[in-house]
């Protein structure tokens, strides 16, 4: 990130830059996703216009919404466990911030460069379960408790296919470092042809599908939205939340959608490299500096494509039943992803 400026920045300056970059990387995708997909695309799919008043085509609607939510009364029920009740949304938001820290945006544009980046991403993504359980339990509400437990059961059930689907990628790339996974994809070749490199969505298609289904469930988007099923549980673990605390949950949900899509594009779509235009770079050091500027845009584009997929499915399918959800995870996705691991390993050793 810093070789761009060609000046030495003290450590606190570097950290501040990173944190500001992290804020942008969390809030910008969240805002874009909510406006483009939740407000506009959903409306068009339902033959209506969506917000049109605030700004041209309602593009200022987000600011109006934040202004509205800022003024809402903050109601904390008397029976609730107040301290935990107040902490829960922050924990969910924290999980999102920790998750974005590992996404690489360019050869030098990264926040953290862990050797075990994949591992770290999967570990911190499950912190949100804690926040949701805290919210569900501390509300002292029957709907909240049921929603929280359902969410926990769902998130841990779909955590497994997600972890197992990523192993196929790790086998192919022979590393857990996300930067090197990006390089391995863009500098790779499929059967000797290196026209598009080797984005793992082609060679790991099963893993990609399992991963995206698991992401859908981790984000509790329909058809996996039983934890907040409005026809059964009012609003699940968020029932007692109002005003800005509710909005923090909401921001967390869509920011996490963006971050998960970024991680999926890093693992399966070649990250910050564009297919067809990898200029014969083979290692990290030989990549040109301008990729630091182009990289974030490319990651953002790929993220939008994947979030479009997620939202398309969300708006198109009805909700599963709770038992169908668990059956699907344990009896379909986990055996498939285990078989995928073994198939990938056999092919890897054979070739």
């Amino acid at each position, binding site marked *: 990130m810093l070789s761009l400026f060609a000046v030495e920045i003290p450590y606190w300056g570097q*950290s501040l830059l990173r944190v500001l970059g992290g804020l942008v990387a969390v809030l910008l995708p969240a805002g874009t996703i909510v406006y483009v997909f939740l407000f506009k695309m959903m409306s068009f799919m339902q033959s209506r216009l969506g917000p049109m008043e605030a700004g041209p085509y309602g593009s200022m609607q987000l600011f109006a919404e934040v202004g509205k939510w*800022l*003024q809402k009364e*903050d109601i904390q029920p*008397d*029976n609730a466990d107040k301290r935990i009740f107040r902490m829960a949304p922050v924990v969910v938001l924290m999980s999102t*911030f920790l998750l974005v820290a590992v996404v690489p945006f360019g050869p030098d544009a990264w926040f*953290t460069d862990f050797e075990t980046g994949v591992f770290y991403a999967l570990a911190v993504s499950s912190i949100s379960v804690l926040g949701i359980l805290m919210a569900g339990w501390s509300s002292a509400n*029957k709907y909240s408790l049921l929603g929280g437990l359902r969410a926990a059961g769902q998130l841990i059930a779909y955590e497994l296919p997600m972890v197992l689907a990523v192993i196929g990628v790790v086998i192919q790339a022979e590393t857990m470092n996300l930067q090197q996974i990006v390089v391995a994809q863009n500098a790779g070749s499929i059967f000797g042809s290196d026209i598009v490199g080797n984005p793992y969505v082609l060679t790991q298609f099963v893993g990609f599908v399992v991963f995206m289904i698991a992401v859908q469930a981790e984000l509790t988007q329909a058809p996996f939205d039983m934890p907040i099923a409005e026809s059964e549980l009012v609003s699940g673990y968020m029932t007692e939340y109002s*005003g800005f605390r509710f909005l923090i949950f909401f921001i967390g949900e869509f920011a996490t959608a963006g971050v998960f899509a970024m991680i999926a594009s890093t693992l399966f779509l070649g990250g910050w490299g564009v297919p067809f235009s990898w200029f014969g770079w083979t290692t990290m050091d030989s990549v040109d500096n301008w990729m630091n500027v182009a990289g974030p845009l490319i990651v953002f584009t790929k993220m939008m494509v994947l979030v479009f997929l997620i939202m398309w499915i969300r708006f198109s399918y009805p909700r599963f039943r709770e038992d169908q959800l668990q059956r699907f995870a344990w009896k379909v996705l986990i055996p498939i992803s285990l078989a995928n691991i073994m198939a990938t390993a056999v092919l890897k050793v054979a070739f």
Partner: protein
Amino acid sequence: MSNFLRSFLVVVWFGLAAVLIAGLLLWVSSLLRPSKPTREKMLTYESGVDPVGEGWSQSQVRYYIFALLFVIFDVEAVFIFPWATQLERYGMFGLVEMGIFVFVLLLGLVYAWRKRVLRWV
């Protein structure tokens, strides 16, 4: 400090940033929002009727069983990851080893399946 530890320090900063931004927004909101608590408003929400009993009710044991199953498979994944990075070096030996490992785990899943633990009833 080594680069490795510095990366982890960045993680700490990111966690603090999340707390700070949430705190900041909630503080701004507390300056703007009204606060007029009434007894009815502060009641637990139960679809409009007065709440019955307390919210912290007992729940089904099935959640606990699924959590246990999760722990088993998650630990398994921890063991598979390091193997996956070194597969090229292990070659055939590693493949057979992992085949046995995954087979034993699948036995566990099949056992849970046959015991009807995976049924959500």
